[in-house]
Structure formats: C-alpha cells, structure tokens
C-alpha cells in the first residue's frame, strides 16, 4: 500500500515539474517581442559588423590610387597556409636607382583562415581586415584576388 501511495505521489510530482518548465516557456510564448532574432537577409542595409571583425584581407587605397605596400613579403612569410603570394618587379627610379616594387599582391581567400598574422606582421600597415563576410561565389577562381588595384602606386613617404 505504501509503495502504491508513493507511486501516485511521484506521478503528481512529475507532472508538477513539467508544469514548472512549461511556465518558463509560456512566459516567452506570450511575450515574444523581447526575444525575436535578427531578420538577417532583410536587415542587410542596417547590419553593422564589429570594427575588429575579420572577414577578409583588404588593401586600402587613397583617392589618388595609392597604397602603403612596399612588397617586402613579410605577410607572405607569416601566412601559415600560403594564402598570400607577392609578385614584385624591378623598376628604375628617375634618379637612376634600381628598385623592387610590388607588381601583384595575390590573396587566396579560399585558403585563408583569417588568423590575422599577416595584418599584425605588416610593417607599414598596408593590409587590414575587411568586414565583408558574404563570400559565396559560383566559381572558385573568383576567390583569388589581387589586392593592389591596377595602376596603383606606393604612397609618398612610406619607409622601406
């Protein structure tokens, strides 16, 4: 008889624990306006990422199409998985000196793990992390990018 009473009591206790849990869910069910998630594709215009968010490596250019990259290749050495290739060319300056400058700063976004080591190592601060995160493309070759714009040149006064 005792065990039978315990059995009945356990049923009521069990149902009570379920009701306690359902009280929590009911609270959220009737106050949904505080708890809705971001409507992502619709809020694209207003969506602001955090300033340190690492989306891709970019090379900022000034209005005169100038950048800060000297083509030293330190980012290439620091990259753990070979996402960066520096192709440099040698030119003759007006003073008659031979000088190596950057030809193409090739960046393979498909291989990049966004570890920030290249940005941290860059001595002139030529490359930074961009906030763009929607990188899906139809063709894999589009993920290989040339970071310095065509016709761009190094800004005046960058110490080499």
């Amino acid at each position, binding site marked *: 008889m005792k065990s039978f009473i315990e059995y009945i009591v356990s049923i009521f*206790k*069990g*149902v009570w*624990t*379920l009701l*306690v*849990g359902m*009280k*929590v*869910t009911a609270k959220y069910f009737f106050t949904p306006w505080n*708890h809705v998630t971001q409507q992502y594709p619709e809020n694209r215009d207003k969506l602001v990422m*955090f300033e*340190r*968010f*690492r989306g891709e490596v970019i090379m900022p250019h000034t209005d005169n199409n100038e950048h800060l990259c000297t083509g030293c290749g330190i980012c290439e050495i*620091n990259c*753990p998985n070979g996402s960066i290739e520096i192709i440099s060319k040698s030119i003759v300056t007006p003073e008659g000196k031979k000088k190596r400058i950057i030809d193409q700063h090739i960046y393979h976004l498909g291989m990049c*793990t*966004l*570890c*920030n*080591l290249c940005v*941290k190592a860059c001595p002139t601060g030529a490359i930074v*992390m961009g906030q763009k995160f929607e990188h899906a493309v139809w063709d894999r070759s589009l993920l290989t990018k040339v970071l310095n714009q065509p016709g761009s040149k190094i800004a005046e006064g960058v110490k080499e």
Partner: protein
Amino acid sequence: MSEIREVIINNDRLATDEYLVNMGPQHPSTHGVLRLLVRLEGEKVLNIQPHSGYIHSGIEKMCEAITYPQIIHLTDRMDYLSAHMNNEAVALCVEKALQVEVPDRVKYIRTIMDELARLASHQLWWCVFGMDLGALTTFFYGLRDRELILDIFEETCGARMTVSYNTPGGLMFDIHPNFQKRVKDFIKYFRTKLPEYDKLLSGNVILRERTEGIGHLSLNDAIAFGVTGPSGRASGFSCDVRKNQPYSAYPFVKFNEILDFRCDTLARYEVRIKEMYESLNIIEQLIDNIPEGDYAVKMKGVLKLPEGEFYQRVESARGEFGVFIISDGKKNPYRVKFRSPGFSNLFALNKMTKGHKIADLVAIMSTLDLIIPDIDR
C-alpha cells in the same frame, strides 16, 4: 565486413540474437563524424567499439612545418568550443620554454576569456544535451544566451569561434573599450537566466528518470581511463588543473572545485551546471580589477625555442588539455603532441554503457561532451 571479420578473428562469435549496429558516422547524436560499433542484444548494449579518424586533419604533423605563432590558428580548429584554452596552452608552453613572463594584464584577460569560453561551451552542451533527450526548447534557450558571449568575443577578438586571440607573448589585441561593460551586462543577465535552466530541464521528471543511476563510472575507472574535466569530477576525481596547477590569473581568484560522488549521468549534468555559476564568480572577481599595462610582450620576429621538451596543461571546457613540444632549436617544432580530453573520455564510454539500453547510450555520450575534431585532431 571488416567488423564482422574482427569479431570472428577474436574468436568471439555473435550469438543468435546478438547483432552489430553502426551508430554513426552520420548519426545526429554523435555530434560529428564519430562511428560507434555497437554490439546489441535486443535493445541492450553489450559492447561499444569507437572508430575515430573520420575528421582526422593531421594537425600535429602540420605543426612540424610551421612556426610557433602559426600553431595558434590550428589549435582553434581542434576543440572549437574551447579555442581560447587551446590557444592559451600553446602560448603558455612557448612562454615557458622562452622563460618569458607576461604582464598581469595579459593573465587577467586570458582568465576572463577562458571562463567566458567555458560558459559558452557549457551553454552549448546544455542545449545539445536537452536536444539529445528530446527537449528541443533547450536548444534555443541555450543558444540565445551563448550569442551574447560570442558577441563579446567578436568585438574584442575579431571572430566568434576561431578566435586566435592568445599569441606567444601576450594577446593579439588589447581589450575593446566596451569589453568590461558588456561582460558585466552579460553576468547580470545570465544570473537571471541560469535558474531558468534549472526550472526548464534540471528538475524535469523525464530528465531525472533518464539520467539517475545511468552510466555509472567509478572513481577508479575514471582515473584508469584518464577521464578529466566535469566528467571526471562527477566521479569524485579531483582533476581541476586550475586548482592543482594554477596558471594565468587562477592563483589570484577564489573558487570551488565542483566535485560529485554519485558518478552517474545526472552527476555529470549537475557538475556542469554548477561550474557555470563558478565561472560567473571567477569573472566577477577579475573583471573590475584588470591591471593597466601592456597587452603583449615584445617578442622576436622569429621565435626559436631552446632544445628540449616542454609540456603545459590547461583546463579546457572538457578536461585536461596538454601541449607537448619537442624542440631541436629551430624555428619549427620537431614534434608537437596534443593531449586532448575528448579522446580519453570517449574510451570510457564502453565501461559506462555496458548493460544499459541504446537510448541511454545517447544520454551518456552526451554528458561526456565529445567534440569530434578534438578526438581526431
């Protein structure tokens, strides 16, 4: 086929009503690509043979070809839920080898980040544990709160999960000006939400019935299998590295090591819930007292460790995580070995599940909190 051959080679023929079932590698409750070869008699589990290696990425071998600061980004991807701790282990090991003392500011920030990562990991574990037992609601509630921690990470570290924040010699960036305010807001918010977790799931009769007395792992077995972390502490194994071998700012804070002697699935569940409260306590002690100073020590361009062997262990969200580096004096390590908690914990599963039903296997495996890339590396 090969499994059947194994059974025959071991001269261990299947009885008439026994059969072998592959659980995984695509089974949702294995949380990744883990295959368990389960020997069943009806619904009763007789034996479990874990087969890992489906997501083996050769991280230890890759480490031999890259420099020490570059190892950091690989350790993020092993146990992605405790990326901060994994990074810290490598950073501490390299600092120990180079005999570099980092500023107190770095130690404090590292500890706060560790505890936030532990909270995020335990929150995700809580949601997934509920989901494995059939309570889908917990999944949304846990992820809702975890999002706030990931926002803190995103603002300060620049990424949500693969943070790469600890580097040998300090941190990647200084903390963001909003960091302290955000963490304090989060603690205040989460202190109101944690009791909700208890109401929703901990007291629930279905959870109690399915976990109480299930999956018994005795203290001796826990030590023999090397089960660490919350799973080991639920068997009464005092294995908290934060307490036994304090690193970073853990010597400066007061906290309790959560121990439970009931050894069952419910004990492992409650240890993790209580650890969330402890993590909040640790963060509260540190967040207002972050000392001023540099966020990193100036290191050489190319780090070369002296010849020798170096080991450093930290407490990750799943247990003891160790990094063993053998250096031959060059800029690349000669050999790197990671001691991952998931691997040791997984192989205690057979002992714990024997004789239980297959539905209990799901619950027991879930309380071990396995992360498959952590096991396979």
